[in-house]
């Protein structure tokens, strides 16, 4: 519903009502700490502070930008009689009433980076990059170490399986070898062993320990 104001009934609200006039007059600067950081609850400093500088101008210009000729018109002619008289009167008036230099407000803004502790925004970014790189390197190293450990474990598991089956049954069947292969997830070497000893390992002249030894000596199975 539109509000219709009766003319003269009440004044329009003044702008700035409720603002502390003393604060306005003293120009209280904005607080440095303005809000809290969302991630840790600390007060966040205004890192990019725009600083306003007001300085009086050193200009001592006393004359108007307009020339006498531009300001001379019928009214001046009527008052002074001629342009020469007007010019003389104007010169005299200006000499007696020097215009005070107007302190023009020159506002410059500069952005400065506040240094907190030992860090600046750039150094934080550098730290972040280094941390990321170090973490990545550590991750790659850890992954490689895990893979190596897995390979070692797989060889050891396969060897244990071969030994146990051989001791239990007296010989290795194709299934034993397949199980060993599955346990170790290894292809080439065990396949070679299978090819050589297929179905006949128990009667082979080569001892089980020799086979195990031959596998153990070749840990690179992939």
């Amino acid at each position, binding site marked *: 519903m539109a509000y219709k104001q009766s003319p003269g009934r009440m004044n329009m609200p003044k702008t700035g009502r409720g603002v502390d006039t003393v604060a306005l007059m003293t120009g209280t600067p904005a607080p440095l700490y303005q809000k809290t950081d*969302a991630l*840790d609850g600390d007060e966040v400093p205004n890192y990019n502070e725009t600083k306003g500088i007001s300085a009086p101008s050193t200009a001592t210009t006393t004359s108007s930008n307009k020339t006498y000729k531009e300001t001379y018109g019928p009214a001046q002619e009527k008052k002074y009689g001629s342009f020469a008289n007007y010019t003389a009167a104007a010169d005299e008036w200006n000499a007696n009433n020097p215009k005070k230099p107007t302190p023009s407000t020159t506002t410059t803004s500069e952005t400065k980076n506040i240094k907190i502790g*030992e860090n600046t925004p750039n150094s*934080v*970014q550098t730290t*972040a990059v280094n941390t*990321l790189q170090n*973490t990545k390197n550590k991750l790659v190293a850890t992954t490689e170490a895990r893979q190596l450990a897995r390979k070692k474990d797989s060889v050891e598991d396969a060897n244990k399986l071969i030994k146990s089956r051989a001791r239990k049954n007296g010989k290795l069947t194709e299934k034993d070898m397949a199980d060993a292969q599955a346990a170790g997830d290894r292809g080439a070497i065990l396949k070679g062993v299978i090819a050589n000893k297929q179905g006949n390992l128990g009667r082979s002249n080569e001892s089980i320990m020799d086979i195990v030894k031959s596998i153990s000596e070749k840990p690179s199975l992939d």
Partner: protein
Amino acid sequence: MKKLLLITALFITFITNAQHVSNLGGVWEATDNSTTYLTIITVDPEHKVTSVHNVSFDPAKEFYEHILGQAYDYLISTHYIKRNDYTIKSKLISIDKFTMKRVITGSANMTIFYKKII
């Protein structure tokens, strides 16, 4: 018809991969100055997030977030700041490769958008 299905499948793959959690890997900066922390997220070769690390201007303020779980396109983590008794649970959502959204609940409730800087 086959071509249409193929194109649709490719398009769906493209769209879904754009939001994959592995896109969270990198250094992230908040776009709205709500936090001064840079968030560093590392992803392992199996495309799982392994760490969420936050660095700030003050080296003493660095902290890791505890990862509670992760799904296809988001990660849930939590952290506690003792000096302020400040507990935050975050849901880090991958919008695309260069945009991340963090929805925080707990001591503060808000949404922060990040852009990837590295």
